[in-house]
């Protein structure tokens, strides 16, 4: 176990290192992004640009610039080239918004994904199964940003049922917090509800043919108990895997949803920084996002070992 943990940690660090190098390289080959010019602002003269270049070390070799930036990111001193505000502080400020969005959406998609998948599998072939299949496949196929635009137009602008976006802190007013987040939650969750219910349905249908299910029935257990305790429970393994991967990678989807619903979280910050070709926040946010992806990748493996005792951790990481 200890060996596994050490190897896994080293692997995570290596991937994060590679990710950061990749971002750094992508944005250093972009011709229109001269950081010295960005820092100098609109009324820049050549002398100012030259002195900034010198002061910030933009004329130093790229590997050294990279090390300086990474050092600043991890010591919390890194500042944006565009606004000069502290990047790490700005990310921390965005955490409540972004985490509220992600966790709420995850609760919704797990609940409805598992509910729909369960009902579909139990009633396989019936009309309920067909109806839920239509819902699920449509959910998978829907362009998320388009759904957001449509919901916003009809539920907010036309019917005025819900606020058009923004964020109210949970500690201030829990009801308003939820009311402001309901549309973003639904938008973010829709794809996953469809996807998870499909996966759970097929995994439950496979499990129903297993010997232990026949044994459970032979013991005289009620059908409901067989389905929940034996079939569903064993079919949740792929859901756990997917959830780990999807939840870790959610930062990508958040960019769009935060933008459309005007939530000032990390996703919004990422998008603004990208548009300004503002390298320090882009580096920091990408690392932040990639960290969650590799972290949840590892958590999935550990969860696997608990759910399925046949998996041995040391060997699975070959």
């Amino acid at each position, binding site marked *: 176990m200890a060996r596994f943990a050490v190897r896994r940690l080293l692997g995570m660090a290596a991937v994060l290192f590679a990710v950061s190098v990749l971002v750094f390289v992508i944005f250093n080959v972009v011709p229109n992004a001269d950081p010295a010019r960005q820092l100098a602002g609109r009324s820049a003269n050549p002398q100012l640009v030259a002195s900034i270049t010198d002061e910030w070390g933009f004329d130093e070799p790229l590997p050294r610039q990279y090390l300086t930036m990474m050092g600043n990111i991890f010591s919390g001193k890194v500042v944006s080239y565009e606004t000069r505000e502290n990047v790490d502080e700005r990310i921390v400020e965005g955490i409540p918004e972004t985490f509220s969005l992600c966790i709420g959406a995850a609760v919704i998609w797990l609940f409805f994904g598992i509910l729909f998948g369960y009902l579909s599998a139990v009633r396989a072939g019936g009309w309920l199964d067909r109806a839920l299949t239509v819902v699920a496949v449509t959910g998978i196929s829907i*362009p998320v940003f388009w759904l957001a635009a449509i919901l916003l137009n009809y539920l907010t602008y036309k019917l005025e049922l819900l606020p058009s976006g923004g964020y109210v802190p949970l500690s201030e007013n829990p009801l308003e917090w939820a009311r402001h987040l309901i549309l973003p939650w639904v938008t973010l969750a829709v794809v996953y509800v469809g*996807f998870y219910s499909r996966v759970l349905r097929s995994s439950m249908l496979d499990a129903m043919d297993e010997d232990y299910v026949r044994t459970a029935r032979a013991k005289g257990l009620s059908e409901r108990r067989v389905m929940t305790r034996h079939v569903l429970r064993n079919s949740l393994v792929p859901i756990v895997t997917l959830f780990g991967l999807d939840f870790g990678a959610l930062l990508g989807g958040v960019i769009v949803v935060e933008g459309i619903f005007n939530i000032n979280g990390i996703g919004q910050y990422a998008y603004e920084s990208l548009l300004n070709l503002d390298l320090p926040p882009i580096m920091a946010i990408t690392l932040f996002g990639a960290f969650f992806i590799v972290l949840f990748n590892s958590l999935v493996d550990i969860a696997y070992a608990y759910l399925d005792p046949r998996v041995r951790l040391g060997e699975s990481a070959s």
Partner: protein
Amino acid sequence: MAGRSPWYLAYRRLRRNRVALGFGVLFALIVAFVLAAPLWANGVADTGPNATHTLERVEVDGESREVVNREGKPVGPLWFGAGGKFFLGADGRLGRDEMVRLMYGGRTSLFVGVVASLITVLLATVLGLLAGYRRGWVDTLISRALDVVWAFPVTLLAIALGLALATGGLQIGPLHLSGDSIWVPILIIGVVYTPYVARPVRGEVLALREREFVEAAVAQGAGSIRVMVRELLPNLASTLIVFFAISVANSMLLESLLSFLGVGVQPPNTSWGTMIAGGFELITSSPQLTVVPGVLLLLTVLAVNVFADGLRDALDPRAKLRLEAHAGAPEPEGHAV
């Protein structure tokens, strides 16, 4: 049923799947619709996808109307009121014909989706075959490179690449792509989805390489390239076909997202994504400009997804492959980072 090829059996299973066939027909209709773009543009609407009609008037049932009124509101759907001109109305301040743009935009969306998926599947096949068959340091190198791309939030990587390339273009050897080229989003989408296909392909190659027919080929003196191309590739074909179909759906969705954010398809090209982006600015006054391209995109992706589902059932009746690719299929041996 002895003597029938597996492809024929798969075809027979697919033919019995009414739902999948129905959606296959829907997809064919959408393709026919976008292929008819020049016919409609030249024969009926008499305009091009980028021709502006801001200050013009159009005769509707004998009454003359402004294409774009003084408040900047474009004319709504005229259906056949003006003989097919502005069938779906105009697209905004520039007064372009929405129907013509919809047809040409669909061409771009489908083209990007299909070509990007070809790139994904091609790259994934080469990488998966090499990593799975050669193993050793080749496998380590390829798998770690895929891990790095995998560790990026897909959208974030695609947006970053989109921005970088849209401002600077791309130079690969003698080949130069300008920033507004349609090939920029195609390459980006093709590359970012590669790990999601390459990983399962590698897994399948790892299983296949231990089988007797590979051993037999090696014993006959076949080199590794021959084994990979002649022995392993045909056994991967059904997996690759299904991945390709799912990949078309996902690539079209990612293209529309990138275009919506302004880092995908660039003017003068139009796609359904750029049209939704344009329509979103006028959503309260002219919601049809957002609704129509979005519904078409949804129907296309839906048709591809349902057809791909049927294809998978037909090619692999035991359906042991879990190919729901958008978030990556769970791997039996666990995710090694």
